[in-house]
């Protein structure tokens, strides 16, 4: 009889545990902070591993080349009149380091929790800081009050997977107009950037961070521009090397 009871208990545990987990996940875990609810750990140092779009990311392509970006007709005059020296003079040297492109800029990320409901991403390339707000109130009030900026206002949500793990979704708006590519392919202030952050293990014990980035701009794009730069986890910040924005390099 004891065996039967034990088996019944085990069955109940198997069936009930995922259901309870799902319910908790769906309710948003009422009093639990975003940090406590995180289904994946993104914190630490990460380095760009540039295997894709190398020619557009590691060096500055020729003026006028916008291949693989669905640039609209309205974007062409801007593309063809790109003047990096003028950007530098106007204090716009960070135009290619905005949220629309920053994850594709080769460099390192340092991801930490600024507080229990705000994830902070710093980049050493261009010394930018992004804040991902999990509290909807914080994100929307920032958006309605603040001026457009290179990194805009980002609202973040966890997307937990059944059985553990999951993904981070971030929607960024209120952006200052910037470049999708170093050579002046533009995005406007009306741009929305939606990102999905996923992690994957490597066979050698390492970890990869994948940032699927969807840029939508009704002004300068004819459709979504989607890229998925990836990063390798580093054990510490010993290679962290902050460098200022540059419009020529």
């Amino acid at each position, binding site marked *: 009889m004891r*065996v*039967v009871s034990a*088996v*019944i208990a085990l*069955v109940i545990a*198997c*069936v009930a545990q*995922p259901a309870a987990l799902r319910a908790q996940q769906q309710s948003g875990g009422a009093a639990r902070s975003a940090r406590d609810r995180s*289904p*994946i750990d993104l914190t630490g140092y990460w*380095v*760009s*591993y*540039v*295997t*894709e*779009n*190398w*020619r*557009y990311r590691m*060096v*500055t*392509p*020729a*003026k*006028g*080349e*916008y*291949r*693989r*970006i*669905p*640039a609209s007709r309205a974007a062409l005059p801007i*593309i063809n009149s790109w003047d990096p020296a003028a950007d530098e003079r106007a204090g716009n040297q960070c135009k290619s380091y905005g949220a629309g492109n920053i994850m594709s800029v*080769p460099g390192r990320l340092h991801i930490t929790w600024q507080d229990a409901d705000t994830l902070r991403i710093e980049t050493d*390339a261009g010394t930018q800081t992004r804040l991902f707000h999990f509290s909807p109130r914080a994100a929307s009030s920032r958006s309605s009050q603040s001026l457009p900026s290179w990194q805009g206002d980002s609202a973040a949500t966890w997307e*937990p*997977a*059944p*059985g553990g*793990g*999951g*993904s981070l*979704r971030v929607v960024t708006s209120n952006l200052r107009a910037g470049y999708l590519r170093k*050579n002046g392919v533009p995005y406007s202030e009306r741009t929305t950037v939606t990102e*999905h952050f*996923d992690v*994957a293990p*490597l*066979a050698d014990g390492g970890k*990869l961070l*994948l940032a*699927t980035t969807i840029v939508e701009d009704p002004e300068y794009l004819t459709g979504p*521009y*989607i*890229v*998925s730069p*990836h990063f390798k986890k580093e054990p510490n910040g010993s*290679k962290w*090397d902050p460098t200022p924005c540059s419009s020529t390099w």
Partner: protein
Amino acid sequence: MLIHVVVRRALFAMVLVAFAASRASAQFEFVGSWAPLGTEDVQNDSVPVDYLGLALTDEARIRALSYDESQKSMIERQCAGWGAAYLVLGPFGLRVSSQTDPATNRVVSYTIGAWEDWNEMVIWMDDRARPSEHALHTQAGFTVGRWEGGALAARTTHVKAGFIRKTGVPLTDQATIDWRVFRHGDILTILMVATDPVYLVEPEIVSKSFRLSARPLDYSAGCVTGYEGHEPGDTVPHFAPDRNPFADEFVKLYHLPKEAVLGYPETLYPEYRKKIKDAYVPPPPCTESCGAAGNFVLRR
């Protein structure tokens, strides 16, 4: 007594079913047609000597430099196709179907349909054992998958020796490829991590995104061989590695550093960008014979 036995067995079966369901149930719908987006560039223009974004061994580099793309015009090689990695390197979309066990209705496998120059890939989802290492190696290889952390995780082994780039960069039959498939709404992203103990110093990591297509993709055109200037029995076209006439073409076309074009590992990290900062001069704007999107087409 008999009732106890029956109850125990029934409960044991329930435990097995609950355990199996928690491990194997799909975490998103993978089946469907997924159109390519074309926003990420891995193979550039298929310029003959282009190993950008790869971390190659010296042996791989020498073999790649000996490759002549005219090999593909030999009738016996025209339809040889490309290996599993071409799933994320090629320009095509995905047509994914599933096969179920009629008794349990559970997914046994997913099949990614073939293209003109790529064989279909089957991802076995039933925890089946891998065949012996001496079993047949094929272009698609042998792939086993499982659901993990919201993604479809799979590993391909038993690939046939071939290429990881159409530019002749080789891959051995000892290579393994790990896949992760993520779905976010209508966007599917496939992450490939290819390792090769002979030809890759570091894994080749490529991710490619696709968009759910309302219309089925049609890749029904098969490969048809034809005479392309080579007779059966002709010598296989190749170059002496140090005399490849295309070795500098990509370098000159885009003002790229030669070590990057030749796939040296350090060129994949941000430090390299800083290293070439003062030496690099961007190419001038294209003024004639430019293709769409202002790209250069002044080749050969």
